[in-house]
């Protein structure tokens, strides 16, 4: 029996170590905020934090997650008031909303390592996350707002 921490709570796992973290989160823990989009780390919809770093949970095997701290969108802020979540709503980013968990988790990791990113740094950090509705200009605006930086 292996254990890991998900959103601050200790969890047990004794299944197939090759199973991606995504399916552990979604199917076993039944936490559905983390989304399935591609299964190949190409779209970012499944982004979570593993020991604080953004990873694609669809390509992270459980064997690489055990013993670590996992944070999902549900655990980013208990009240849903992380500065990015607040900015996301103020700017009105979501359209269908499906990719936004992954976008926010990716952006949160960016701001963790770079509190005042430039536009180029935002683009570099966020271009692995696809939004088919095309909310990119608002995602950029929301990250700038949360970080308190002006448009370049």
């Amino acid at each position, binding site marked *: 029996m292996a254990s890991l921490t998900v959103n601050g709570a200790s969890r047990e796992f004794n299944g197939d170590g090759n199973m991606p973290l995504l399916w552990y989160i979604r199917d076993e823990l039944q936490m559905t905020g983390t989304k399935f989009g591609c299964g190949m780390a*190409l*779209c970012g919809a499944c982004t979570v934090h593993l020991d604080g770093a953004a990873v694609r949970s669809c390509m992270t095997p459980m064997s690489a997650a055990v013993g670590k701290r996992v944070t999902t969108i549900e655990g980013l802020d208990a009240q849903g008031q992380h500065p990015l979540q607040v900015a996301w709503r103020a700017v009105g980013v979501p359209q269908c909303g499906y990719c936004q968990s992954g976008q926010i988790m990716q952006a949160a990791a960016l701001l963790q390592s770079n509190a005042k990113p430039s*536009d180029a740094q935002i683009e570099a950090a966020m271009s692995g996350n696809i939004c088919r509705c095309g909310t990119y200009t*608002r*995602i950029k605006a929301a990250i700038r707002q949360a970080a308190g930086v002006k448009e370049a």
Partner: protein
Amino acid sequence: MNRTELQASRGRLSRRDFLGGTGGAAALGLTLGAWHDRVEAQTEPPKYGAYGMPNGVVENPLVFVAIAPDGIVTVTCHRAEMGQGVRTGVPLILADELEADWARVRVVQAPGDEARFGNQDTDGSRTTRHFFMPMRRCGAAARHMLEGAAAAKWGVPAGEVSAKNHQLIHKPTGRTLGFGDVAADAAKLPVPATGDLKLKTPAEFRYIGKGNVPIVDGFDMTTGRAKYGIDVVMPDMLYAVVARSPVYGGTLRGFDAAEAMKVPGVVKVVEIKGSPVPSAFQPLPGVAVIANSTWAAMNGRKALKLDWEGGPNGSYASDAYRRAMLDAAGKPGKVIRTSGNVDDAMKSAAKTLKADYYIPHLTQAPMEPPSATARFKDGSLEVWGPFQSPQAVRNDIGKRLELPAEKVTVNVTLLGGGFGRKSKGDFATEAALLARETGGRPVKVVWTREDDLHHSYYHTVSVEHLEAGLDAGGKPVAWLHRSVGPTLLAIFMPDPKTESPIELGMGLTNVPFAVPNLRVENPEAAAHTRIGWYRAVSNIPHAFAIQSFVGEMAAASGKDPKDFLLELLGPPRKIDPRDVNDTWNHGEDPVAYPIDIGRLRRVTERAAKESGWGRQMAKGRGLGIAAHYSFTTYVASVVEVQVDDKGELKIPRIDIAIDCGGIVNPERVRSQMEGACAMGVGNALSGEITFKDGRVEQDNFHQFEVLRMNSGPQRIFVHLVDGSYDAPLGGVGEPGVPPIAPALCNAIFAATGKRIRNLPIRDQLKA
């Protein structure tokens, strides 16, 4: 745009066949085959708009509004939310007329039940334009009922009571009651007749047009709480993935599930029988692996041994098909519209030019892949999922499982994108079929991204052949357009080879140019895959070719592209769609919805002005313009590009101007336009689905490349043209897309002198 609308369009010709029907595939399949041959005399006045859709409109406030004793107003949204904002916009319309306080309004989602709610098919950029007035009337009727109940309680004439901000006020005395205080009494009163309703004046609107209401799902969407179809979780649930025929029309010769059954977690393997081509929205033939987790089901599928026969489409190849379409475009085809004498005018023209444009297959690729959960218990089937047309799902499942409508319940979740893909409930019927095999346990079917790309209903592929003649002054005197591409009718009827009125009416036959000699032709093309519809549908190829060619004509005439476009549009005037052989007209009344050239000119001029059209551009920079009318809305865009020495393209800015008439939620109109810019750019830069041996060659997002942040427009400026609420409204979800790709390619031409005629652009600038 969809199947029910196909019916509505056909209904213009022969209405008797479908009146009273529920828009099922059966009715459509039976009647569409004879469609082309049958033009009957109209036996009753045609119905338009929402009233021309299957099951029309329900305006009973008791169906859509519930008010609790604590005053909380619950509005039922009968349209599907896929990012366009209808779960906010539709209830907002009703709440405004109700004089409800938006903070005390809650929204619940209707199940698929058109007999109860009216048409629910969320497609064709129709929701706001079809339901603006009905929802206003619902709200007003509920308001009058509350006023009447308050008047009765006070024993005063109803005319002395008025609703204001969730309160009922007795004007002479200033007494007040809350909505919740009289709601139960109000519900017992008769619903006022439409003619007795006092609608607000636009000056009295509290929310409509104000942009003061954030989307109702915003908090859930930013916290992971929002539930999409794929997020459905039920006790004791099973999971399934399906291996499907890689070729449309292919058959399963045999399969061996022995190894799959050995995969830990796999519970059962079930064959899903396909339906004969054309199979409409029925599932493809396949083999499902049912397991106790998604991962186990996926692994089980990998272990299946499958023997597929490709069938007649097994040799479909995009490159050969493209050559065949080019060949067809070089020869005369079925004449769709003709005026003057194009051949003579071409001969006497001072200058002629011609061009072929290629627009490949695309696919919707919503970020949430198709997924549905079904449970079959006690003879009844219940399904949950992201359905654009829940009544179609209900009909299709009922037909396939031979269940009456009352035994099929369809619950609609949020859609993680739709773009037309989730109009087709093949994935829901898969879940329904599997739910019969699990002893009452619910089963969730999950499509992987590969499944989604390999088994979509693809946007058509087309060659658009354009010719024009200019006189000595550079004035256009002749126009010939041949459009070649497989039609979406092919999923409903056997082997149609020409475009439907719906496709023709998407900017082809109704090209709004003032050219004296004009001919539109439609040479034949057969479909070899499931052709479906994708946001903006055939407007994509038609607008790309036409607006690119306008740019080519402008260059040939030596005129400014914006001035030339305005010259081609001609003077402000209203064109009756019937006069340009558009029998569809988006299902709308041709009198209420003419093609208004004044409005198309206005958005063109607005986009140009806002973009700083005519400004000095640095080397490698250029502006391109395009305008297009679709879904009864007028849109023009100016794209600015920067192309460096290595052919690297950047898009610093897009200006997009829209006139959709009166606007309900300006903030969501802006977001739809921004999204349309992104999607239009993505389509043009890298969007392409190709076939080889009948199979799609793209497996995932590394091969079907959709727009990412780093290649998208850096700034988007949306310009809303103020419209009147007295005139009928236009659509918003789709019409932003068509002018983007041609404006982009016109900008590339301005910046580099290179004309892009074949999409996607990909590395063409790097030559």
